[in-house]
């Protein structure tokens, strides 16, 4: 990390324009000595907070974030101490995005890498079109989560809503609670040793302790839908 580790750069959004803050955060990507630790005060649900970061820095948002917080994140660790709105960590590439409260729909949508942790509930379409990122939700996820998820992993400690994993490709879903219904071509699969290891690894990465990976059930693609077969035409 940077030479300035240990000091905290505090930015008060009650006094600083959001664009100025985001610009300063973007500038860390090419800074010789990036500022390693940031705290954003009075976020008040502002949209597009800490988007497009590309530096190994830590950004703490001290309150509620609006839409598209930490979108396209690369390398940075972003923590929202509160709730986040629609599209948290959309298209995350790497790094870690954590929300201590709840998040609205489409969390980690199209995420390609990195880890998204939701300590409360995520709502509808969590992990929609997931492309390689990992998601750990301590609460529940809403309807249509992991819709068309291509690759990556989603671990849900609570329940999942309707149509989980609809039209899923090769992403892997682990749910500890009840699944209201499975979407088209999504089926329950056997939880083998390597899957328990995978869940254990993701729980550890998310800082979740005292949960037995054996309590989860695994869901994934039946692989009947995404390779077109004329017998399945009615299912599309």
């Amino acid at each position, binding site marked *: 990390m940077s030479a300035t580790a240990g000091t905290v750069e505090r930015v008060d959004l009650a006094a600083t324009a959001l664009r100025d803050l985001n610009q300063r955060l973007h500038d860390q990507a090419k800074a010789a000595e990036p500022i390693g630790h940031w705290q954003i005060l009075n976020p*008040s*649900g502002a949209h597009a907070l800490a988007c497009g970061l590309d530096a190994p820095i830590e950004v703490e948002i001290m*309150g509620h974030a609006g839409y598209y917080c930490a979108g396209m994140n690369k390398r940075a660790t972003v923590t929202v101490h509160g709730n986040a709105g*629609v599209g948290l960590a959309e298209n995350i590439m790497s790094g870690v995005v954590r929300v201590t409260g*709840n998040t609205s729909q489409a969390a980690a949508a199209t995420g390609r890498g990195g880890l998204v942790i939701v300590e409360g509930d995520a709502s*509808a379409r969590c992990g929609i079109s997931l492309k390689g990122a990992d998601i750990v939700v301590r609460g529940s996820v809403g*309807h249509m989560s992991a819709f068309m998820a291509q690759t990556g992993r989603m671990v849900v400690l609570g329940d999942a809503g309707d149509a989980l994993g609809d039209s899923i490709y090769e992403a892997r879903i682990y749910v500890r609670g009840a699944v209201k219904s499975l979407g088209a071509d999504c089926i329950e699969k056997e939880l083998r040793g390597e899957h328990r290891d995978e869940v254990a690894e993701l729980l550890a990465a998310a800082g979740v302790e005292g949960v037995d990976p054996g309590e989860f059930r695994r869901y994934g693609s039946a692989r009947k839908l995404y390779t077109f077969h004329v017998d399945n035409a009615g299912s599309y």
Partner: protein
Amino acid sequence: MCGIVGLFAKTDDVQVRLGAHLTSMLLEMNDRGPDSAGVAFYREPAPAGGSKLTLHHPDLGYEWAALAADAAAQFGGEPSAHRRENHAVVVVAAPADEAEAWVGRSHPEVRLMSAGGVIEIYKEVGLPRVFAERFGVAELDGSHALGHTRMATESRVTTDGSHPFSTGLDLCLVHNGSLSNHNRVRKDLRREGIVFRTENDSEVAAGYLMWRMREGATLDQALEGCLEDLDGFYTFAVGTADGFAVLRDPIACKPAVLAETDEWVAMASEYRAIATLPGAEGARIWEPEPATVYSWQREGVAA
């Protein structure tokens, strides 16, 4: 985009400060709907046997006292008109449906915003921030209230095209979203005698609810009918004399957050509007499920 806020008071303290709380919520939704704004407040019940009308006339100098005197001459009672900007609440010593019919006949120059025993609707074009200040929304008390900020998509920006829409006595609707079959539904509803003033899609949803309830449906049944008969995206919030209800379409693309404490129940397009309320940090917070009717009523009041 559009923004919706709603607040239902469970304590006297929140009732007294309802307008101040709702204003804080509405201002957070300013940027979601800079074209127009409106609120519906449920407050100061009309005396038994009487009703109150919220009326609009664009001229700030309109003689509301004269209209109130006409009403008193027609129905008896003391003339009562309270102007708030270009709106006025007129208390009439007659049931709301009679009062509404009378004002339509004898004062066609004014527009009816709402009719009932407790509802008051105020709405106007312009920035929500400016609207709230002009109309002194923060001064209003009440048992519950809804607010809306509009970003127009389907029709012109006018006072009539602003939300909330009255959907019958003491009922109103606010909408975030867009309906795709509103022209067809409007045509059908006109055949049923429902009157529309604009080309607005949300007014069609309001007219639909009005029609269903006129035909005997409960509010919950009428809302469930929306799932069958209205095509498009919507989060609806409906105000009733005793509470409010929330419905999202089966896809639920349009946002809604609900929160509840021992003091209040709140609904908003985004959490940041709820974050302005006292005790929001400890509230139970969730996003309403798609195609599910949520409703709250004052305790001890029949549905």
